[in-house]
């Protein structure tokens, strides 16, 4: 069953690349933040699957919880910071 989780982990890791492309070539700042949010969520899921791959679920689940918290706080801070600026964030 571990090989099935290896396939799932590779699939989730490949799914982290389209949001990374959006982060690199986003037309606006908000596109980049949306891409960063999606990359972070996929990273949380990848950590949860990696716990099943290495059979160390107790450690990787805690890491995933911390990543989810940091991702949420970072995205909220970036959104609140960009909300105050006018027009300069679009170009």
């Amino acid at each position, binding site marked *: 069953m571990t090989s099935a989780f290896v396939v799932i982990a590779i699939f989730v890791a490949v799914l982290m690349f389209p949001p990374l492309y959006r982060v690199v070539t986003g037309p606006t700042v908000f596109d980049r933040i949306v891409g960063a949010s999606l990359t972070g969520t996929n990273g949380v899921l990848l950590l949860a699957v990696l716990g*099943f791959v290495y059979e160390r679920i107790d450690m990787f689940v805690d890491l995933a919880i911390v990543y989810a918290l940091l991702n*949420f706080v970072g995205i909220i801070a970036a959104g609140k910071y960009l909300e105050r600026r006018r027009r300069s964030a679009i170009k």
Partner: protein
Amino acid sequence: MIQFLLAAIFILGGLFFLAVGSTGIIRLPDVYCRSHAVSKSETLGSMLLLGGLALYHGFEINSAKLVLILLFIALTNPTATHVIARAAARSGLQPWVQERNGEILWSSNSTEIEQSQGGDMVEDKEA
């Protein structure tokens, strides 16, 4: 046995919806459309995947932590996307429109279509 079957179905469905979300973020034309793909499809995919992993693991403390991550993502992922879309709207980013000959065919802001066509939507659908 039925537990593993349900877990496999949940995990495969979750991977499908994650793929839909990652496709949407490179195919869709606008921040607002992309935040739609991220908030809905990605949240459903994450919930299905984490629920499938918790089902596969069985009744234990780590499954409770997986369900905790599931609830946390279900609460925070649409919230974060909403904050980004609201910041984009408040800093004056206009929604994407599809035009042909000066007529707006499709917009993510539906009031623009009604304004450009005089509020008469029925004739345009028949034509």
